[in-house]
């Protein structure tokens, strides 16, 4: 729902199927042309060495897909959580005036909740790099 008075400042939205289709076709045609030119003009010489992974000039050992340590996973998860939640904050900032004080209060609550989560993660050592970054009182035998 648009706030009152803003209709004049925005262009009217007129759904047009033809324009949409034309745009779609253009996008696909461009992609197809690029892919075709690459595969047609590109040099292909798939010999054994060329298909091998490059690892400083020697034949690699073992598979490259291994179980990765939890540290990488944690970083990825924290990034996802705090990054996605920032998206809520941005959309709130755009409609700050229309949402009014109620929206402000709700958002403040949301941000505080986020911050509490961040402090918890910080305290738990989740922001430290590495698999061994646990509080000093912890070791592998006791759970904490």
């Amino acid at each position, binding site marked *: 729902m648009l706030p009152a008075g803003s209709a004049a400042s925005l262009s009217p939205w007129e759904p047009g199927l033809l324009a949409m289709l034309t745009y779609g076709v253009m996008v696909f045609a461009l992609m197809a042309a690029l892919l075709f030119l690459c595969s047609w003009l590109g040099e292909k010489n798939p010999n054994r060495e060329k298909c091998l992974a490059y690892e400083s000039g*020697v034949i690699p050992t073992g598979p490259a897909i291994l179980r990765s340590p939890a540290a990488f996973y944690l970083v990825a998860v924290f990034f996802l959580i705090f990054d996605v939640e920032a998206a809520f904050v941005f959309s709130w900032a755009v409609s700050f005036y229309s949402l009014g004080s109620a929206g402000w209060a709700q958002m403040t609550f949301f941000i505080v909740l986020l911050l509490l989560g961040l402090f918890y993660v910080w305290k738990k050592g989740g922001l430290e790099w590495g698999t061994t970054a646990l509080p000093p009182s912890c070791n592998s035998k006791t759970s904490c």
Partner: protein
Amino acid sequence: MGNNGITAFLQQQNFLLTRLDALINWSRQYSLWPMFFGLSCCFIEEAAAFTSRYDIARFGAEVMRGSPRQADLLIISGTVFKKIAPVVLRLYEQMADPKWVISMGSCANSGGMYDVYSVVQGVDQMLPVDIYIPGCPPRPEAVLHALTLLQEKIRTGERPSRSVLNLGGGIQGTQEPVRVDGISKSRDPRGTGYTGLPIRGTAATPPVFWQNRTELMWTPQAHRVELGSADKSLETQLLERFRKVVQSTGDTSDMLTLQVKPDQVPEVLGFLKNDASPRFLRLEDLTAVDESARKDPFSYPDFTLVYHLLSFEGPRRIRIKTSLHGPHPAAPTLTRLWPNADWYEREVFDMFGIDFKGHPNLRRLIMPHDWMGHPLLKSYPGRATEMRPYTLADARRQQPLDAGVFFQKPDGSEEMLLNLGPHHISTHGLMRFVLALDGEKITDLDMDIGYHHRGVEKIGERQSWHQFIPYTDRVDYMNGTANNLPYLMAVETLAGIGVPDRAQCIRVMLSEFFRLNNHLIWFATLAHDLGAMTPNFYTFREREHIMDIVELITGGRLHPSWFRIGGVAADLPDGWKEAVDDFVKTFLKRLKEYESLTTRNPIFKARTRGIGRLSLQDAIDWGVTGPMLRASGMDWDVRKKFPYSGYQNYDFDIPTATEGDCFARYLIRVEEMRQSLRIIRQAADRMPDGAYVSQDCRYGVPSKSASLKDIETLIHHFVHTTRGPEIPRGEAYAAIESPRGDQGYYVISDGTSSAYRMRIRTPAFANVQVIPRMARGASISDFVAIIGSVDYLLPDIDR
């Protein structure tokens, strides 16, 4: 449409294709992507071509690519070793098509001066080569010239549009054939058509001495020294404590030398390390000599093991020798006493086939794992041209060891094994680190060296005493002509040759210039490894300034080979003082600028402080020397402790630190640059007058003008420039403080015109062996800082 119509169509089509050819060639010739791949010394000059003075970007070959996938120009810059050849071939095949190859320098072209068992005699035996650059090493201008020649070749010689458009036919990329020995190339060092002559030098090369005329020449006895009272009392102490085990060897040219029975070696050396007074804490060197080609074989055993120990108190050195008998003898290991004996013993096993009982991991160190024979045996052929040619098929077959072989991991281990090197920007040469990784944390680390083994110790046994000087330059290609110094000092010690003051002073001045040269490039590469590109372009400016001075004085850049037995090759030229003064005036200010880019840079500090700590105890136990030892807290510098070439007359300080981390090593080297500058200034200011080379012509080469005045000098000139002088029978060890640490030459003469054994104790060999101690538990990014701060060079490790 009739015939005319078709012809017209084809003509039109050809016209279009020709236009397209020109367009594609034009765009290709100005957007060549060279790969970042340096094999040897030549790469330093290749890299210089990318920096501000030469600026290869002007010619459209902008940035060197780290991966073969992004590169289409391979510049083979330096020696192609048999151990690295399979890697070179793989990198070439992994490059993007179409691709081109430039062979840079004599080694890559033909093996150059390295006609030795470990070197491929020309990369064109396994790769097609478009352009050859002659020179050893070629100048950066020559790289630019080669690039323009290649551009010309692409422009005029290639018709790529038919292949690009998949029309069949067309010419693009390298079309040169791979050369085959005996058909399309000749490896014969005599040149084609001279097969009736013996190969130059073979007449005087062990084990056969056909017509060696040095036998007819009289030379005095080796120079002998009187041992000091401390050495004498130590000798008495050892002789009494180890009766019938330790024997005196009599006269010596340099240090106390004792003969020990093989089985008691650990006991005697353990006493020297732990209980003797003074204690000999460092195993400076461990090597072997194959005695089978002695002129007087009955006075020698089959093999001699030689241990050089060093005591920091005094300071003094001691040499312990032990005799071994049989074709594949065994000796007890020293690895329990000194951890650095590990590599030394593996090297002896590799090169001589001597077994070490109790060694934890006795396998080949330098030669490839599937190599046949032990190269430093006198019966082993030294020259590559005596062996069958290395071919493309060999390069496909002889692969480096799989990374899994280096570690004992339980089955199902989820650790990642990663090869860092031999081709990697951060390894600074052909060095292979095999890492076991948990995430990006290094849990274990092993090193595979020998990719840069040029067999220089074997070459030392066949080149005459003069001819060997150029090979020493290339043992540490950043240290230039200063490398000549320890070799010449050993020869001068053995033969008792005096060096005039002026020559001493010139030697010091040039040595310090090369120390600056090394430290400047080290500064640039360390910063580059840590993500700072800028210092590269600035420090190379100073480096070029140094090269200009070196060129003015010596006529060469990287490898001037300018020191001679008893002095230097020529007097200082006119205008040298002004050139040196110019440099002295500007350098401090410049150094300050460079430091301001890094020293207080928070990223640089975060990447180096507390990273790669090396404790003083470890540094001593592992025989670490040079700036690394000083950064760990030991005030040790050969220039102060065993002053040579008149260093005792100069006023300079030895910077030390206690942290032992990458940052401390950085600070030490930066301060060393200031101290080197002080020495250069003093040397230039008080350059004494007089002769630049010893006037005693028994060993040195007399000047040409003098040789034209009387017959005696003429004879000496002739003999010394052809078969070379005879150095008296004996042995001597001499060491200098190279930019990396203690670099020593142990020279044995059997009274002929070439050395009987040429042993080079290089600092990087010891400094690199300790890297696992510093790197276990570090992350990969820290590891790059660690290896950057060690400042090793591959020929200095592998020789």
